[in-house]
């Protein structure tokens, strides 16, 4: 662990950031798409599969945590270093419009996809307009 990440974890200070495993925690890049009946969260988490990602929902706080596994090259020297490896963590606050019971998650090729159906009440309703005179 480099000095930098140690500093981040100390400054965070909350118990959940205290980890037994050394290493950095990265914020994954995320897309959020709103569809008619659902909200999709897509997170880039290379090195993570369906067995190494934890999704927790506590009250309205949704946390995604991915433990990445990487095969590190043992021999030779590092010539180019454009990315660091570590775990991923990101926290979202859900609004009431999501149906919490029906959230689905899948991981494919290092990308986590959360499908969150909208609760019935939040779905957009089209209100028919009748042609008629005022009473």
């Amino acid at each position, binding site marked *: 662990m480099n000095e930098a990440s140690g500093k981040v974890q100390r400054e965070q200070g909350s118990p959940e950031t205290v980890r037994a495993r050394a290493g950095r925690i990265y914020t994954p890049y995320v897309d*959020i798409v709103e569809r008619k009946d659902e909200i999709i969260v897509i997170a880039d988490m*290379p*090195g993570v599969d369906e067995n190494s990602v934890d999704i927790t929902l506590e009250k309205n706080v949704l946390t995604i945590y991915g433990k990445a596994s990487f095969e590190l090259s043992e021999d030779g020297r590092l010539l180019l270093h454009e990315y660091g490896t570590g775990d991923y963590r990101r926290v979202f606050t859900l609004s009431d419009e999501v149906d919490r019971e029906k959230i689905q998650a899948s991981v494919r090729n290092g990308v986590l996809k959360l499908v969150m159906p909208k609760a019935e009440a939040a779905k957009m309703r089209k209100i028919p307009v009748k042609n008629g005179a005022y009473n």
Partner: protein
Amino acid sequence: MLWSDLERIGHFFDPFRDFERAGMAFGFEGPSAVEFPAMNVWASDGNAVITTELPGMDPEAIDISVANGSLTLSGLRKAEELKEGESYHRKERWDGRFKKTIELPFSVDASKVQARFSKGVLYISLPRAEADKPRKISIKSE
């Protein structure tokens, strides 16, 4: 907007991203400073290993070509297709066509290059060409 909370929280609780930005000032390269896809390269005397992060891509959509002392990686990473009435609330993931060439420390034997794709990470092993390997020259004593 119902998701404004999320947007705001996203900004507030992103200390790592800010940290990464600060890190760049000290000479560490954050992911955003690097052209997609980010690569790490290791090399020993006889072999080079390249690892690169291509999350969400199918291996068939990745093109690797090796010529003498350089490797070119190209492909297309598609964004989520939106239908009418759908919209992005947040879009941080990179998409588009990419082509990235890096110089290798030596000439490689293209026929022996191996590539493997697992969990969004591409591993490429490049053995050094026999002809390029350093030869020990024996010195005759007179």
